[in-house]
């Protein structure tokens, strides 16, 4: 015991000596209070637990441990822990990460790419040890080696069960109401101002003999808002074809253009006027945000459309478009799910479909029972959400937090 203590002292001296000599203390007014604290080595961490990381694709191990007795207590000189890993208990150990003092766990994530230097192979044994470090790199303590452990991927992510339940419930609701709609049930939906305006606006354009400008927004064809916008475009184009009004659809994304062409063409065929369809009604401009806006602005002031319809994803350009359209004297109807842009449309357009209403619009315009059925499902889901939020809130404030935690999605 005595010998060990002596050894420790010696070690500390060896560490502190270079620092102390570097310290020419005589001319500094602060030297008194600033002598380097010679720190003895802290205690190592204990009880290292290893397991394969849950709910992942493999290539990762989760470590947990009990912190050093000198972390936040005792000598209080621990600043962090270093995680070291090896393929055998003898080493060589490689430093994987550093975590600050007070941490109890760490997830060691390797790369899944074989070509990467960080590649961590699944189904082989790994060994870990944790080094407790202090501010002085020479003073540290190593834990015992823990292991072996193997990493592997899972086939089901249990952390996402709440999402699965929500999706399943929603799907069931949708299927149920679609079935009811097929059976001929009368499904009521209340009128929406923005939707009624679309019909009016098309009529107005016909009277004025001016075209309708339909902007699909800046989304790609993979954005759901754009998909919703096609369905609205389909209904609008059908009415336009019936009334024999002009239609201008400038596009930002080439696939969006392609799909929009198909949609408009089909609508013209539906309306019984396939010959009135011209390929150039739907055209591509450019994929650059503000160049696109510049061009659409020009179109608005030169072709003077009677109505501008903006549906889909919009970013900062929303207000530039809407104000220019107002300048040109067009009636404007907008709909977007981009929260930051809704206020601008609300302010600058005549009618705005706020968020969710964009997704309901195609059902309203088409009035097909199947679509209305899906709208019903949406309403019931909303009622469910309101109910859950209320119940959860009340339970939580009476000290029951299990209900809330049930809805937690871990990753």
């Amino acid at each position, binding site marked *: 015991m005595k010998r060990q203590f002596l050894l420790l002292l010696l070690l500390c001296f060896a560490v502190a000596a270079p620092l102390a000599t570097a310290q020419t203390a005589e001319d500094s007014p602060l030297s008194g209070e600033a002598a380097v604290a010679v720190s003895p080595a802290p205690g190592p961490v204990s009880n290292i637990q290893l397991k394969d990381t849950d709910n992942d694709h493999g290539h990762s191990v989760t470590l947990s441990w009990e912190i050093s007795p000198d972390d936040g207590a005792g000598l209080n000189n621990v600043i962090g822990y270093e995680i070291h890993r090896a393929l055998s208990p003898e080493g060589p150990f490689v430093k994987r990460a550093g975590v600050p003092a007070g941490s109890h766990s760490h997830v060691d994530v390797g790369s899944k790419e074989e070509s990467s230097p960080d590649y961590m192979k699944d189904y082989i044994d790994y060994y870990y040890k944790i080094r407790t470090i202090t501010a002085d790199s020479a003073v540290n303590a190593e834990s015992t080696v823990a292991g072996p452990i193997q990493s592997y991927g899972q086939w089901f992510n249990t952390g996402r069960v709440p999402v699965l339940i929500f999706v399943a419930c929603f799907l069931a609701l949708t299927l149920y109401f679609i079935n009811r709609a097929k059976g001929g049930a009368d499904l009521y939906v209340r009128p929406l101002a923005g939707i009624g305006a679309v019909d009016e606006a098309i009529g107005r354009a016909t009277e004025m003999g001016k075209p309708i400008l339909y902007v699909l927004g800046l989304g790609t064809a993979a954005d759901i808002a754009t998909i919703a916008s096609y369905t609205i475009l389909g209904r609008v184009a059908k009415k336009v074809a019936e009334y024999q009004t002009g239609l201008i659809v400038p596009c930002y994304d080439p696939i969006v253009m392609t799909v929009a062409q198909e949609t408009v063409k089909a609508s013209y065929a539906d309306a019984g006027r396939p010959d009135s369809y011209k390929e150039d009604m739907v055209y591509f401009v450019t994929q650059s945000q503000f160049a696109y806006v510049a061009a659409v602005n020009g179109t608005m002031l030169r072709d003077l459309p009677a109505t501008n319809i903006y549906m889909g994803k919009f970013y900062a350009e929303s207000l530039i478009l809407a104000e220019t359209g107002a300048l040109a004297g067009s009636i404007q109807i907008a709909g977007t799910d981009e929260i930051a842009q809704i206020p601008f449309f609300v302010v600058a357009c005549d009618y705005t479909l706020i968020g969710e209403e964009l997704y309901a619009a195609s059902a309203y315009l088409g009035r097909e029972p199947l679509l209305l059925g899906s709208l019903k499902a949406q309403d019931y889901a909303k009622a469910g959400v309101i109910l*859950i939020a209320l119940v959860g809130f009340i339970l939580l404030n009476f000290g029951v937090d299990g209900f809330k935690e049930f809805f937690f999605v871990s990753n």
Partner: protein
Amino acid sequence: MDAFSIGTYLWTTFGAFLTLCIFSFLYRDNPFYKFAEHLVVGVSAGYFVIILWHNGLQPNLFNRLNDGDFYLLWLNSARPWYLIPGILGVMMWTRFSRKKSWISRYPIAMYMGIAAGIAVPLEMKNRVNVQLYSAMKNVEWNNFFGTGILDSGSAVAQLIILIGTLSALFYFFFSKEHSGLFKGVARFGIWILMIGFGASFGYTVMGRISLFVQRIQYVGNWTETSWAHPSVLVIWFLIVGVFALLLLLEFIKFLTKRRTAAS
């Protein structure tokens, strides 16, 4: 400016000229704006062709197949399955023909299927689950009014957030007429929405003003460079002169129009 180069100066001048062209749109549509607009449409479309070729197609398709042989249709490359997206891409081109354009529906169908499928669980989690989870919040009842009615951390504020969220959600109900009790709740919901929209509009003004200030700086820097180099002042006068002349002409037009209207 460190080293003055006439080439860079001419380019910057062109940039300053285009900046003024776009600003002239605020007065009204005019040939300068039309020029800048059509130019940027062409240039940016070309830019994306190049960027998507070099940074999109090259690394994502060509480089993955380039260990294969053209004559074996790249089937001998290490990752021949990357031929599939290539083939699907070429199928898009059947749209150039009127007769065969239906073939392009296959890639489009896959594209839409993938996009819609990925969105279902992801949006459910990000928008519904996460927001629902954070809507259920423990309220500090003993801190009911906080430091005053305007303390956003107080229990009152927390309750307003919860009730506001639920009423606004209620406003979006499609299958219920807004009448009776529903009318009251839905109306409170739309109030909350409108107050939120106003706040968000007012908050954005600051950022938009800074955008314009940055453009003033840009033209200002160019002006300074011009004054600092007397030899290029000609160009400066040319550009500013053209815009000043046009402004004058517009003003004269405006005055004569007024006179004829008055008489």
